[in-house]
């Protein structure tokens, strides 16, 4: 692999990461829409190419880092795309530990999802289209990850949004799916608007500054805060922070692999990635950091409570995702983008695992309902069930699973840098997380009920290997990656190897166990469908999704529509009236004048001649001959 370290090899690697997905998308959408197997083959070939390139890039990076003191400086490889007098727009790649790490997350999950989809989407008539969208999505995400500046990020950011729209609405004939796609698009658009304004302000102030220069921009404090908060708006939309999180649970209408890919491991973490990318900007502003922290905590808490009361397995994991994203954001707000990224890293694997597991259950049971899956023999699907348990353990944050380590890092950061109130809140969220994840596990663990819909008494068959294979790989990753905690900080920022902070880890673990016990007490035995928490009157609030949907509905129906009606009335009767009045007047005058146009050429000529002769008379009177 020595040649890979040369410039030519490097450019091959970079292009090998960036282009295959787009090529696959183009080929499929143009030529292979009817030939599904070829489409799948092309897409997976592209995906594996990218994965291989990514791994080689990682190997190269590690090789370079080994001979280097501290962290490797970021390297950018750009082409001038558009040059004006005031700004040069660069297009290209950025290579630093952050982007390489993110590439690994994205490409591994993408590859596994594509493999998994062979089984999950088996027999679906739109598979070719599905794979085309998946390729485009992964490509966009890759492009976003390697963007060296905010403008390119924005382009791929929007492409990612478009792909999520396409994939959520993949089963467009289902009204819910179409509505969910629309909702996702509109909701993220609110945030994207903020990001766009921030981008424009940045472009105006500093040109198309590269991410590597963010630390030395020297913006005025107010402007920095402003731009940071606007960028954070985009993060709120894309990473589904409170209060724009409502699109994500609805987005579960898409095919489950899409949920795993888009809404667990890659797209939603784009926001978090962007936060880390523009960390220097945020770090310059106390206010921005506080805002980020509070949004993260509120999101984590709200989403966790809602996850406790869901019956739909995918919705549980969806709210869990929102909650975990809140963790990442609050970690960033607490000043540790390292912890944030680490949590992103671990979460990607176990959440993908949980989603794919959920997909496996759904594929088997034909229903999203937890209790229904249990009745159809969910625990008989051994691989799926036990990998789900591993994922749940990681989610709950029990050692030695990966979630434990990343949450530990976050809790440490919060404890050290923030007011204790935040720390207590985050701890409580950890308790809730354990509760809802094991609520799912215990429900699924229930015995299968004999019923007319079930053919065999001894539990269901497990899913085929193309589905369970990725599950096992992800479970392995979930178990293992936590061990990297010590080296992660060093990898990312050159910090010294850290160690576990027992003063944080022990209470956290205790709370997690408490949550598991509570869940077991509520759902471990008996056929009850309501746990202890469910009986609290206050749980009505999360059950109604904090009335947010109602609020949005009210806003759109009453305020927006009312205002629209008012505008429409004004428009129709005053603006249109004025315009139409002018138009009618003109038309009336025209119709009067057009009576002159009799179609009688002789009359025209008559008038013409008369005027000419009068003019001629004027000439006669005035001109000296």
């Amino acid at each position, binding site marked *: 692999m020595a040649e890979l370290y040369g410039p030519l090899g490097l450019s091959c690697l970079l292009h090998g990461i960036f282009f295959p997905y787009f090529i696959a998308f183009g080929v499929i959408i143009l030529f292979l829409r009817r030939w599904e197997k070829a489409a799948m083959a092309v897409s997976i070939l592209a995906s594996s190419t990218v994965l291989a390139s990514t791994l080689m890039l990682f190997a190269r990076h590690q090789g370079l880092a080994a001979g280097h003191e501290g962290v490797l400086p970021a390297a950018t490889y750009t082409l001038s795309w558009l040059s004006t007098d005031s700004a040069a727009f660069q297009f290209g790649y950025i290579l630093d530990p952050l982007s390489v790490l993110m590439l690994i997350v994205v490409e591994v999950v993408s590859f596994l999802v594509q493999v998994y989809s062979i089984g999950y989407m088996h027999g679906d008539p739109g598979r070719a289209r599905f794979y085309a969208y998946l390729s485009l999505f992964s490509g966009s995400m890759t492009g976003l990850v390697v963007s060296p500046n905010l403008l390119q990020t924005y382009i791929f950011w929007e492409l990612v949004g478009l792909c999520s729209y396409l994939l959520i609405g993949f089963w467009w004939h289902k009204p819910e799916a179409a509505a969910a796609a629309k909702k996702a698009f509109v909701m993220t658009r609110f945030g994207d608007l903020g990001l766009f304004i921030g981008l424009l302000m940045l472009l105006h102030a500093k040109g198309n500054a590269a991410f590597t220069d963010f630390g030395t921009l020297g913006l005025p404090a107010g402007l920095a805060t402003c731009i940071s908060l606007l960028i954070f708006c985009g993060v709120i939309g894309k990473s589904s922070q409170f209060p724009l999180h409502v699109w994500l649970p609805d987005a579960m209408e898409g095919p489950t692999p899409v949920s795993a890919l888009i809404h667990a491991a890659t797209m939603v973490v784009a926001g978090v990635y962007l936060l880390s990318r523009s960390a220097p900007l945020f770090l310059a502003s106390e206010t921005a950091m506080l805002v980020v922290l509070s949004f993260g905590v509120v999101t984590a808490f709200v989403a966790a409570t809602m996850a406790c009361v869901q019956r739909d397995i995918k919705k549980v994991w969806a709210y869990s995702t929102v909650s975990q994203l809140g963790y990442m954001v609050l970690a960033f707000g607490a000043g540790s983008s390292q912890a944030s990224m680490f949590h992103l890293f671990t979460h990607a694997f176990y959440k993908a695992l949980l989603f794919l597991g959920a997909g496996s259950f759904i594929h088997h049971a034909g229903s999203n309902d937890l209790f229904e899956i249990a009745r159809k023999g969910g625990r008989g699907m051994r691989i799926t069930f036990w990998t789900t348990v591993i994922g749940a353990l990681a989610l709950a944050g029990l050692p030695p699973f990966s979630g434990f380590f990343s949450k530990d890092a976050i809790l440490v950061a919060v404890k050290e840098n923030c007011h204790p109130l935040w720390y207590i809140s985050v701890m409580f969220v950890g308790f809730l997380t354990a509760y809802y994840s094991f609520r799912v596990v215990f429900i699924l663990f229930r015995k299968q009920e004999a019923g007319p819909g079930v053919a065999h008494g001894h539990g269901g068959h497990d899913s085929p290997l193309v589905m369970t294979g990725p599950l096992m790989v992800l479970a392995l990753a979930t178990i293992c990656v936590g061990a990297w905690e010590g080296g992660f900080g060093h990898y990312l920022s050159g910090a010294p190897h850290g160690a576990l902070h027992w003063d944080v880890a022990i209470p956290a673990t205790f709370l997690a166990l408490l949550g598991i016990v509570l869940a077991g007490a509520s759902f471990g035995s008996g056929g009850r469908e309501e746990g202890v928490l469910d009986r609290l009157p206050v749980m009505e609030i999360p059950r109604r999704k904090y009335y947010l949907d109602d609020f949005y509905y009210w806003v759109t129906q009453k305020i927006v529509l009312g205002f629209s009606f008012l505008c429409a009335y004004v428009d129709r009767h005053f603006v249109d009236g004025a315009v139409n009045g002018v138009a009618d007047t003109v038309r009336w005058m025209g119709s009067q004048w057009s009576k002159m146009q009799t179609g009688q050429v*002789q*009359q025209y000529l*008559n*008038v013409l*001649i*008369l005027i*000419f*002769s*009068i003019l*001629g*008379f004027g*000439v*006669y009177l005035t001109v000296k*001959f």
Partner: protein
Amino acid sequence: MSAEKVAFFILSGLTLGGGLAILFSVRLMRAVVYLLVSLFGVAGLYILLNAEFLAALQVLIYIGGITILMVFGLMLTGPGQFVNPAESRLKAVAAGVSSLTTAIVLLLIVKKTKWPAGTQALAGDTTAEIGRLLLTDHVFAFEIASVLLLVVLVGVALFVRLARDGGKP
């Protein structure tokens, strides 16, 4: 009053009288005859103006070509067209007013302008000179005219075909 003057007045009278007769004739066929008279008067004026070739051309083209064409046109547009429908009084007044104004203005301008005095008379045989001019100084216009005639030939043939096929190409 010289014989030339007499001839001039007679020919002018023929020309203008023929024109006015067209205006007031009710039957179109007679109008064509009046047109003939008028054109003959013009040809005579050409002779007075030492333009014999043009006079012969006038007779050949206008009388031998255009008036006959008009007769054909008359015959092909049906017997109901031989008599003009009555024109409206308003139209007559409007046409009269603007034409009269035009005439007055033109005559006034002709009167007021100081025209160059006629100096040299034209040489006897102008035909050869006209031919030479046509093929030297004005050869471009000559060629344009020939192209025009070709286009007209083809175009009218197309029209005839249209007419034969009932107006559909």
